[in-house]
C-alpha cells in the first residue's frame, strides 16, 4: 500500500491494523543473478536501482545483522556535493540530484532537507583553497558561493566572531546541501527494493566466497550457500575482511569515527556548519538534537567506539565556534567503522577476481553518496562498465598514481 496523507488518515481511522511490513524478511533462495553483501544504504540502494533501472530482478541483499545497523544507522546525516576534484564532483552531484527526488521516487519520506552546508574559513590561504574548490564546483555546474565575514555573520549571528582564537573570515556555501534522515533512507530503499522483488535476507553472515575455475559462484553464509552469478560487496568498514575471503588485500584501513547528539531543544541551528580551524561540524536534526562530529580517532578499529581525546577535541571545536552550546548536554556518543581509503576517495570497481565487485573506501563520507553509489554500483554490476560519473573510482588508480586526493595527505588513511 502506498504511503500518503490519505492512506495515513484511512489507517488512522481503522486503528492502523492494515499496514503491511515495509519489507519481507526473506529466506535465501538457491541462486540469484546478483547478490549484494551488505544491507546498509549503499547495498540496498544498489539492489533498488538494479531492479528498477537495469531490470535485473533476481537480486538478494545479504546482511549479517539487521539492515542499516552499520554506517547507515550511525552517521551524522549530512548530504552535499561540494568536492574539489574532477574525479569526485560529477559523482557526488549525481547523488545530490538523486537526493532531490528521492522521497517521490521511493514513496518514503527520507526528510531530505536542503538547508545549506557552510564551510567556514579562517585565513587567507584557506579562503583561496575554498575559492579553488568553489570554482571547481561552479565549472561543473554545481552551486557554490563564497561568503565574506559580514555575510556569514548575517546568516549565523551566534557564531563567535569576537573572541575566537582563529577568527572567522568567511565561508563556502552550498545551499543545496543539507541533511536527510538516515534510517528513513535505509528503510525507504529496502521497501522500494522489496516491492520490486529483491530479497532482503537479514541475520545472514557471509563466511566465505566460493570460486570455481577462477570465477566467483556464490557466497557461504551462516544460513547456507547462496549461488550468484555476480557478488557485489558493499560492506564499508568490513571490506577488508570480506575481500580477504577472496584472497584480496585492499588499500583500506578501518578506523573508528565518533558521532554525537545532544538533548533535543527547540530550533537553534538551521544550517549545516563546519569549522575551518579544527575538526568540527554540526547540524540540528528534526527531532531537535544537535548532531555533531569531528575527526577520526586515528587508529585502526573495529570496535565501534572511541576514546575521550576526540570527544574533548570535538567539543572544544564546538565551543570555539558557537559557545552558546556549552550548557546543552551531550546525550549519546557512539562510533562506527570507517573504511578509510588510501587517497580518501571511494572504490567502485570490478575486483581482480571474476564475478566479484567492490564498493568500498567511503571513509566517513559515504552517507551523502548513498543514491549515487547505489546507481553506479548497479550500473557496474549490470553492464560491467563503470558509470560515467564513477570512472575514476578504479582500484588500479593507486598503481597508476591517479589518486583522487582531496586533502593532499597521501597514503595515510588516518589523515584523510
Amino acid at each position, binding site marked *: 500500500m502506498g504511503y500518503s496523507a490519505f492512506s495515513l488518515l484511512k489507517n488512522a481511522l481503522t486503528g492502523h491494523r492494515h499496514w503491511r511490513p515495509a519489507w519481507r524478511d526473506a529466506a535465501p533462495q538457491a541462486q540469484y543473478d546478483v547478490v549484494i553483501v551488505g544491507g546498509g544504504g549503499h547495498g540496498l540502494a544498489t539492489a533498488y536501482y538494479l531492479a528498477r533501472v537495469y531490470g535485473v530482478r533476481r537480486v538478494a541483499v545479504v546482511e549479517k545483522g539487521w539492515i542499516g545497523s552499520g554506517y547507515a544507522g550511525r552517521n551524522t546525516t549530512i548530504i552535499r556535493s561540494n568536492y574539489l576534484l574532477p574525479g569526485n564532483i560529477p559523482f557526488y552531484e549525481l547523488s545530490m540530484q538523486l537526493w532531490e527526488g528521492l522521497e517521490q521516487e521511493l514513496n518514503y519520506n527520507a526528510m531530505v532537507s536542503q538547508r545549506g552546508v557552510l564551510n567556514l574559513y579562517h585565513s587567507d590561504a584557506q579562503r583561496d583553497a575554498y575559492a579553488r574548490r568553489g570554482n571547481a564546483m561552479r565549472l561543473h555546474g554545481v552551486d557554490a558561493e563564497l561568503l565574506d565575514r559580514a555575510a556569514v555573520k548575517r546568516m549565523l549571528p551566534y557564531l563567535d566572531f569576537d573572541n575566537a582564537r582563529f577568527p572567522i573570515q568567511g565561508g563556502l556555501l552550498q545551499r543545496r546541501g543539507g541533511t536527510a534522515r538516515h534510517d528513513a533512507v535505509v528503510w525507504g530503499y529496502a521497501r522500494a527494493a522489496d516491492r520490486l522483488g529483491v530479497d532482503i535476507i537479514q541475520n545472514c553472515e557471509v563466511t566465505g566466497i566460493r570460486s570455481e575455475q577462477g570465477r566467483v559462484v556464490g557466497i557461504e553464509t551462516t544460513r547456507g550457500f547462496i549461488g550468484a552469478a555476480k557478488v557485489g560487496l558493499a560492506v564499508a568498514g568490513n571490506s577488508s575482511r570480506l575481500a580477504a575471503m577472496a584472497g584480496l588485500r585492499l588499500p583500506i*584501513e578501518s578506523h573508528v569515527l565518533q558521532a554525537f547528539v545532544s538533548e533535543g531543544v527547540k530550533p537553534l541551528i538551521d544550517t549545516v556548519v563546519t569549522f575551518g580551524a579544527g575538526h568540527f561540524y554540526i547540524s540540528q536534526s528534526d527531532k531537535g538534537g544537535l548532531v555533531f562530529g569531528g575527526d577520526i580517532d586515528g*587508529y*585502526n578499529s*573495529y570496535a565501534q567506539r572511541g576514546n575521550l*581525546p576526540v570527544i574533548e577535541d570535538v567539543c572544544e571545536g564546538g565551543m570555539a565556534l558557537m559557545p552558546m552550546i556549552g550548557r546543552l548536554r551531550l546525550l549519546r556518543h557512539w562510533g562506527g567503522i570507517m573504511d578509510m581509503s588510501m587517497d580518501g576517495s571511494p572504490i567502485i570497481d570490478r575486483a581482480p577476481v571474476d564475478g566479484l565487485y567492490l564498493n568500498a573506501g567511503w571513509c566517513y563520507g559515504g552517507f551523502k553518496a548513498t543514491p549515487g553509489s547505489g546507481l553506479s554500483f548497479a550500473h557496474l554490476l549490470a553492464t560491467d562498465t563503470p558509470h560515467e560519473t564513477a570512472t575514476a573510482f578504479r582500484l588500479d588508480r*593507486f598503481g597508476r598514481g591517479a589518486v583522487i586526493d582531496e586533502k593532499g595527505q597521501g597514503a595515510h588513511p588516518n589523515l584523510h
Partner: protein
Amino acid sequence: MLIPCPHCGARLSEEFVCHGDATRQRPAYDASDEAWTDYVYLRDNPAGAHREHWYHAAGCHAWLVVTRDTRTHQIIGVEVAR
C-alpha cells in the same frame, strides 16, 4: 587509551600519533611495481591483533611497535621500533 611506552611508562594516547601497519617492509628501489604499490597502498587491516606503529610525539619521540587488538583496543605488547 594508554600506550605503555617502554621509556616513559603508560601514557595517555593523546601523547602519541598512530601511523598504522608496522609489518610493512620497504622494498628495494628496483623491486616490481606490484611490490611498491603493495607497500605504499595495500593493508591487511585485520579484525584482531594488529602490529602497528605509534610515535611518542609529546614524549620521548620513540617509534614503538604496538600489538593491539582492533576489536577491543586491548594492548597485547609493545616494543621499541629501533
